[in-house]
């Protein structure tokens, strides 16, 4: 065996090992999802089984058809989608401008502002229930989506701003400066140069807004009272009683709600890596 053959063999072996390692990791990541799928196919509302096969004996789609026929599940998913989309659009727009200010300007209070963003994540969320409830009642926002949309888009702002600021920081200033020399305003430069270049980070911010709003439970629980207006998170827990939970339908619902999020992840996966650059506080 020549030296070169040896090197190729070694290289192949290395890649084989990498593939094996990743496949094992991927299996660990996917397996629980498959198990939920298996619960959703199992007759008789059994959460547990010693049976490890993914397709259980007497598999049936009854849980899915029950869920769609006897509950308002599609309606709930649709409500969630409406809220989530509005939230994402508003959240990303607000974050994109704020992040630009943090990235390109020096002004008093800049560092304090960034730290404030971080501290907003530090209050234990459950403690906000009571004051939030009082506020919602006062402003008569119960049973409306408006309050929820505002709350959601604001609550994911800190993270979005961090991502976007980090990304803007990597775009050379010379690009804007050239435009400014040509007589474009600062806002124009932001709109025409920075934003189009930031597609990866914007889509990550969108993704983040989407998943948080889609999965949110606390605020929804406080605001919404009528099952017609429920989001899916509230709806899914409608299936859970003090002791008895309809696990078949619960799992079927879980599968259905995972699909949109996976779709959004899949769609943005090409930007996922390059877009998630958290900015520094100092910079």
């Amino acid at each position: 065996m020549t030296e070169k053959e040896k090197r190729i063999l070694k290289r192949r072996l290395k890649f084989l090992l990498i593939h094996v390692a990743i496949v094992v990791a991927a299996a660990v990541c996917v397996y629980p999802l498959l198990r939920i799928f298996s619960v959703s196919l199992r007759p008789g509302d059994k959460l547990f089984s010693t049976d490890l096969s993914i397709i259980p004996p007497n598999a049936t789609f009854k849980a899915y058809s029950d869920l769609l026929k006897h509950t308002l599940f599609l309606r709930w998913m649709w409500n969630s989608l409406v809220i989530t989309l509005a939230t994402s659009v508003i959240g990303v727009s607000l974050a994109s401008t704020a992040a630009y200010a943090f990235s390109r300007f020096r002004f008093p209070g800049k560092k304090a502002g960034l730290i404030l963003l971080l501290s907003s994540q530090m209050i234990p969320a459950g403690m906000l229930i009571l004051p939030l409830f009082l506020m919602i009642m006062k402003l008569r926002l119960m049973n409306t989506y408006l309050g929820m949309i505002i709350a959601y888009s604001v609550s994911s702002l800190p993270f979005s701003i961090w991502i976007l600021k980090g990304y803007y920081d990597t775009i050379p200033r010379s690009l804007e400066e050239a435009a400014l020399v040509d007589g474009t305003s600062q806002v124009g430069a932001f709109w025409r140069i920075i934003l189009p270049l930031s597609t990866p980070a914007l889509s990550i911010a969108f993704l983040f807004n989407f998943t948080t709003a889609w999965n949110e439970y606390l605020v929804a629980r406080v605001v919404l009272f009528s099952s017609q207006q429920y989001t899916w998170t509230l709806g899914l827990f409608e299936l859970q009683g003090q002791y008895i939970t309809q696990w078949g339908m619960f799992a079927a619902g879980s599968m259905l709600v995972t699909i949109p999020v996976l779709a959004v992840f899949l769609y943005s996966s090409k930007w996922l890596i390059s877009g998630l650059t958290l900015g520094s506080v100092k910079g």
Partner: protein
Amino acid sequence: MDILRSVYQVAGFIVLISLGVAVLEGYFYYHFKYYARSWFFPAALTVFPLLALAGYYGVTWEHPLRVWAYFVAAEALVCAAFRNIVKGRNTLPYLLLAPAFVGLALLLVYPFMFEVYLSFHDLKLTTIMMWKNTGHIPFVGLRQYWNVFTTSPLSEVSFWALVGRTLVWTFSNVFFHVLGGFALALLLNNSIRFKGVYRTLLVIPWAMPQVVAVLAMRGEFHATNGFVNIVLGRIAAAFPFLAHLGVGPVQWLSDYPLLTCTIINVWLGIPFMMVVILGGLQSISSSYYDAADIDGASYFQKLRYITVPLIRPVLMPALTLGTVWTFNNINVIYLVTGQAGGTEQADILVSALYKAAFTYNRYSYSAAFAIVVFAMLFFISVFYLHGFDAAKDER
């Protein structure tokens, strides 16, 4: 038809909120432009509070004399700030930041002040009706804070031991998030086939709704029906010598509840770190590695002297956020150890806090507790950020 209505609805919400933002921007714009004019101060003091009042009345239908006074005071403060501190400088960045920060203030400042108020008073099961009827509860000064530090919310663990447990929980979680994320990112950073597919599969724990993911993982740790124990049992049966070494099914949830929570939370958190680190790895120019190759550096030397230092600026913010999120993570513990309250063996600060607040209705005590938790996190983050700045200066 429903679909059309919903599209209309989404658009409506966006328009409505944009209008709100426009109003806000207009408000600040006037302040930036005219703050120095002599007519501005009285004009602002009459016009803006009245407008705000109209809006307030429209929403709440309350007679608003006291509220009007608040608005006037607030407007006076804003005007004074513009006159003496801002002085019309930095118009653009402040205008860009205004909507985001006003939103944050609306959502967080009132609840935070509310908690601070509660923490100095005494709201509990027996005073709650008094508070509702009269709007007053006894002022107790720092007693609630004293209680936080001297009495433990748990029975077997003192407050300081609980702090220690929370720190161990936080740092072990974050450590394994980074370790796992780093390993996977290094693997993915090779030019291999199916990279896109792998990447998608590996982020599934992050993409799944957390409630669903945690419940699924909890099932896998079940003593008799969980995947982990079934596999452990089979391994022990197939290799008896391993069974002698103690390999075998484990009562995960009753014997090691906190460990189980940690494993599940690590599983949940790795994908996020992986993505962050992978982004960092891809931004490292290959010329560094080429130069190191010429010097004959080994793989681990390259890792130690090139990859790690260059990843650090990307990693530090993620670490800070990860620490804050893990410290406050209630979902995993709540869902894993049982919604009825579970045993206390897996409680960390925040879950003990929620028990005090919701099981025992000790509102004031838990408000003080929440503020202590907040202060701790703030301290830890400042420490991190300091470390981050130091790292930056090193380069």
